[in-house]
């Protein structure tokens, strides 16, 4: 069927698919990703000059650790935001998962792995509920997850009896977040496990988003849901999967924070969603869906924690910290916009 005359003209216009790591590195897309670090680097350099206490192993580790929870939550949000949705419930969902881990481990005295599984499972379950509300009942994501946010906040308090649940009977639990596997191997790098987990979650999420069927549908849903539906894809199913995956990742965040605080604090969580979404958006993901990268999200999360940490190290008065943070978030994103425009 292919007629020889057309094929010849076509082949000149079709660029050969570029392969090989080297070629990939120099693809414009990759270069752009590397440049996205710019704002972060500028911040780091500034703070290094502003305070000699900033650029020290301890503090770098502290920044890494401070990014872990928000980073994981932001990764959870990235999935949802790429579909063009939003998830306001990530913060309280994290808390809910932490509380459920507490119930399983402390109240019921189950072994550690069951607590871990419970947190992730309950996260997936909550995400599943949001997903069903959004995909099947067509409740707008904002409302469905706002409702879930309140529901889970209340449930966390009810289940825990408005008291923190401590993990003193499960000694291994703090290991999840606080100890350092890497530090045990390379003493010079005492990177806490929380950061390792953030890193693993990021890598896995990145692979899922870019290389898996789920990831492809995530982008497609955000780009044009109706077109995907008319392609014969079970849009509802995939949407529910996306929210469930996002929920499961919130469960991991719940484990991180509970392990770090050695307790499930039922009152905590609200307000974390804004930080998470901010990290995603600072990282270049559009709230209207269809675009986004995990690396961007991670950079966004780091920009936020470097900023907070740096200003605190400089002992800037708290009210001014807020002012400066606001201004710098805008500036960082603006720089990113300028950079992309140039390309």
């Amino acid at each position, binding site marked *: 069927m*292919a007629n020889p*005359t*057309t094929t010849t003209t076509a082949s000149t216009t079709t660029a050969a698919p570029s392969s090989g790591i080297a070629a990939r590195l120099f693809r414009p897309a990759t270069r752009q990703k590397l440049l996205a670090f710019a704002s972060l680097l500028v911040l780091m350099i500034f703070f290094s000059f502003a305070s000699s206490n900033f650029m020290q192993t301890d503090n770098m580790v502290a920044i890494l650790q401070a990014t872990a929870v928000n980073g994981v939550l932001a990764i959870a949000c990235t999935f949802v935001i790429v579909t063009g949705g939003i998830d306001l419930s990530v913060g309280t969902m994290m808390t809910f998962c932490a509380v459920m881990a507490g119930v399983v481990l402390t109240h019921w005295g189950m072994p550690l792995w069951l607590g871990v599984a419970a947190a992730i499972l309950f996260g997936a379950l909550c995400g599943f509920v949001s997903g069903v509300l959004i995909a099947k009942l067509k409740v707008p994501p904002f409302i469905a997850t706002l409702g879930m946010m309140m529901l889970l906040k209340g449930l966390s308090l009810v289940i825990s009896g408005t008291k923190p649940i401590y993990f003193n009977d499960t000694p291994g639990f703090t290991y999840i977040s606080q100890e350092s596997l890497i530090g045990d191997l390379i003493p010079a790098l005492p990177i806490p496990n929380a950061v390792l987990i953030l890193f693993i979650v990021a890598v896995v999420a990145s692979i899922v988003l870019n290389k898996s069927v789920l990831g492809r549908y995530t982008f497609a849903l955000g780009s044009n849901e109706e077109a995907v539906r008319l392609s014969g894809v079970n849009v509802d199913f995939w949407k529910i999967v996306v929210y469930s995956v996002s929920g499961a990742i919130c469960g991991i965040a719940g484990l991180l924070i509970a392990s770090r605080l050695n307790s499930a604090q039922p009152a905590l969580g609200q307000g974390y969603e804004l930080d998470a979404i901010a990290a995603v958006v600072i990282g270049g993901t559009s709230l209207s869906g269809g*675009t986004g990268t995990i690396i961007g999200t991670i950079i966004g999360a780091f920009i936020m924690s470097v900023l907070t940490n740096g200003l605190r190290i400089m002992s800037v008065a708290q009210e001014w910290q807020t002012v400066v943070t606001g201004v710098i978030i805008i500036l960082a994103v603006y720089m990113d916009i300028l950079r992309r425009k140039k390309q």
Partner: protein
Amino acid sequence: MTPNVVIRNLSKSFPGVRALDRAQFELLPGEVHALMGENGAGKSTLMKVLAGVYQKDEGEILVDGRPVDIDSPRAAQALGIGIVHQELNLMNHLSAAQNIFIGREPRGRFGVFLDEDALNAKADVIFQRLHLKLDPRTLVGDLTVAKQQMVEIAKALSFDSRVLIMDEPTAALNNAEIEELFRVVRQLQGEGVGVVYISHKMDELRQIANRVTVMRDGQYIATVPMASTPMQSIISMMVGRELNQEVPDIPDTSANPVVLTVRGLRRGAVIKNVGFTLRKGEILGFAGLMGAGRTEVARAVFGADPIEAGEIEVHGKRVTIRSPQDAVGHGIGYLSEDRKHFGLATGLDVETNVVLSSLNRFTKAGMFLDQVAIEKTAGDYIRQLSIKTPSAQQLVRLLSGGNQQKIVIAKWLLRDCDILFFDEPTRGIDVGAKSEIYKLLNALAAQGKAIVMISSELPEVLRMSHRILVMCEGRITGELKAHEATQEKIMHLATLRESATTPA
């Protein structure tokens, strides 16, 4: 006579694409100047530069002999340049009248409040001029693509421009509307308005254009008078080679097994008791005026919209189709007439769109994508359909309209359905590619696929169909065998209104 517009040595590049390469163009007052070229030749880009949407990289533009700098749509309007864009640019949440006069609303009290009645009246005047029956208060989002296109045209007319650019204005229109449009264009021509007319429909250009400028790969090829130049030579200028257009014989498929039977399909006033059968290896043409309900029938069978009643049999077995997923599961594919909204995820790249409905065929280990296979497959289709794109990773949004259409086709070819609904498959596609698509449809039919081709271009319907169904106002008003069908017979059936058929 000073030309309305002169464009010299205009160049424009996008990342990875040199869309215009020292292009030239000249428009005289009172002429209809056709701009022709293959998909992606740079026609739209050239006109967008003229309309202030894109900024030129180099070159010059003279309007009425004076060099000008058109840095915004507003600047173009101020110079008297109006444009109907190839892609619809409407605000779906606003009414037709509100869309037409956006930015130029008649003001009432204090110059702050809107005079809605004056607005609707003004819009109505333009609709009258187009002989268009449309309530100016209708929300644009509720209109069919064809009506939306008419709103765009009405909008361009409302500017009373001296230069009117029409980028494939008739792609979604039917003969009757095209006639109305041409009437208006001739009227404008008489008033000294210069019209740039972009279209892939050759017979149309014959009727309306005075001169034609041909472009290829962003470059200027030639400007020739329309009347005295044989179509064949224009086409070879466009494609840079000879194109043979032999019409194949229409096979007899009346004895083939029935693959799809639709009975008693109903939904409100849009689909009224529609039933038909489709045979293996058959191309069934669906003709009708705009809004006749052909798209609605296709969408209903495909499960994209709910139905009130109706039975569907596939290969003789009763099936329930509640969603496109069910339909695809039964081997039914549907190529939408509105690629931007229903056909493509335009924010994603070419390869993703090509594999979108067959993604589960490109997996490794159950969930990971076989990127190599995807790239290869996309590359195959890019070659097979001559899709003009810098790479399979280009965003679909950045391709020319015709090439976007080809990607939708590629998607369904890849899905390999037994029953395919092609809704306006050649909308916005150039001659070369059109004949490719015809060949493709014939080849698919020959392979045993059953095809429903909905088209508003009668010559196309006549040329391709083995059998033709005509619809009017949601009913099937007649069936014609290929050899007995003529334009006149189709038009007669297409205007057979219910009130005329039911005895009083």
